[in-house]
């Protein structure tokens, strides 16, 4: 059964959970601002079912943020987004975390995103915490070899951001013969 909910309705719906039937102008304005913030205000009148995966992911993020949570849990929030939206969303979430003292816990595979946006990194390996601490201290070539099975360098780029550059896989059988 496909849902015909509009983007605007879906975000309003998230902010109205647990409150009364009537909707006032402040609540409508909050929805509009949230859509502007995520740059999806042009989609306000579109049905959710018509959106692309990335657009739907942005709506999901809007639904989470409009509830002004004190703790925000995100599972791969950028998985369906293009490069620009990946950066925009992570940058926005980091700003919100700073401005509103929101605690953001995010599961993410892209280690360069983690290095760039996270204050603290926890590395999980085989169901246990392998390492944790400030981003720049945790990510080392030794850790990358052990957890990810890759031979990699951790180097600052020309603007000073720490980057991980993978040189080769350490998996048995994969070698330079390729």
């Amino acid at each position, binding site marked *: 059964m496909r849902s015909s909910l509009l983007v605007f309705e879906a975000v309003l719906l998230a902010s109205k*959970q*647990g409150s009364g039937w009537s909707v006032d102008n402040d609540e409508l304005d909050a929805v*509009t601002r949230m*859509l*502007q913030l995520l740059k999806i205000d042009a989609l306000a009148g579109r049905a959710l079912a018509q959106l692309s995966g990335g657009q739907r992911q942005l709506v999901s993020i809007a639904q989470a943020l409009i*509830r002004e949570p004190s703790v925000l849990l995100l599972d791969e929030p950028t998985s369906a987004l293009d490069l620009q939206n990946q950066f925009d969303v992570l940058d926005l979430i980091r700003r919100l975390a700073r*401005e509103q003292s929101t605690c953001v816990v995010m599961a993410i595979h892209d280690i360069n995103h983690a290095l760039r946006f996270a204050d603290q990194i926890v590395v999980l390996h085989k169901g246990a915490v392998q390492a944790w601490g400030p981003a720049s201290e945790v990510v080392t070539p030794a850790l990358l070899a052990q957890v990810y099975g890759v031979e990699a360098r951790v180097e600052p780029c020309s603007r000073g951001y720490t980057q991980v550059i993978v040189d080769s896989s350490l998996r048995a059988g994969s070698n330079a013969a390729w």
Partner: protein
Amino acid sequence: MIKSAIDNAVTLEQGRNLYSSLATRRLFLLIVIGGLAIVCFIADLSIGQAHYSSYEVLSALWDSDAALPIQVILWEIRLPVALTALVVGASLAVAGVEMQTVLGNPLASPFTLGLSAAASFGAALGLILGVSILPASAVAFAIPANAFLVSMIAALFIHRLSQKRGITTEMIVLLGTTLVFTFTALLEALQYIAPDQALSAVVFWTMGSLSRASWLKLAIMSIVLLAVTLMFARQAWALTALRLGEARATSLGVSVGRLRLRGILLGSLLASVCVAFVGTIGFVGLVAPHIARMLVGEDQRFLLPTSALCGAFMLSAASVLSKTLVAGQTLPIGIVTSLVGVPLFFTLILRTRHQ
């Protein structure tokens, strides 16, 4: 709220306008459907077997000096039947729309979950085997009580199974379908051993008819409809959130499991009460919610009342048709709803194919 947001008066205005035009359109459709239901209700009151003009009969509504036969026809015969059509239609539609919502399945309805079949079997138990839990003094309610009990047993069975871990909503709908077959087989077994007289009573009962209406039954059904609808209305935002999918609804703080169980139980209660009093009336509980959804969308604040009015309108229209299709006869309304419902449902299926 968020400092980094740019306040732009024009687009804030656009957001408000988008919402208010949505709300206005939906309210308008809601009123149109309500108006159609009232028109059908008045037609239902003015049409009948008696040789009095429509105006003569209707005038007894406000004219207490009207001739006694006219008073009796209006107040004792037509009004209970016409009001029952509205209440039963609304009840079946409310039960259907919430079952479809909590189970996320377009085929869920009191009929397809086996509640109607269970009620028929319960009625047949009383009509054929004379089984009744009520004392002989309450004979008028013996058959409805049976139907209600068996139907609620079926509902509690579904409710209990859906509490088990790992049960998906598809499984619940499939389980309901197996209940339909089970109770239909049991009913046929009873009919096989039944004497002719009891057999025709069972057949007539299962067809569904408003002619058994009375003010007391109407009052019971109205109270249940009102109570259940209010309980659903209080959960309007949570029920709408279910349409985003279970995971999303959960992350918005909706306790999906509890809402689903409540929806199944309340919907079953509502449908069981109706089916117990009027017999099997198919398609209203299935089709009315779909029509309402097409008209006003998923927002339960509009969908719930529109479904109710759609159901009331459909059954009231069916009641008018049942009196006018065959001159001088009143067809059982269950036959009319199914005959009109089938082509409607076909169109619905074909319509969704294009989208």
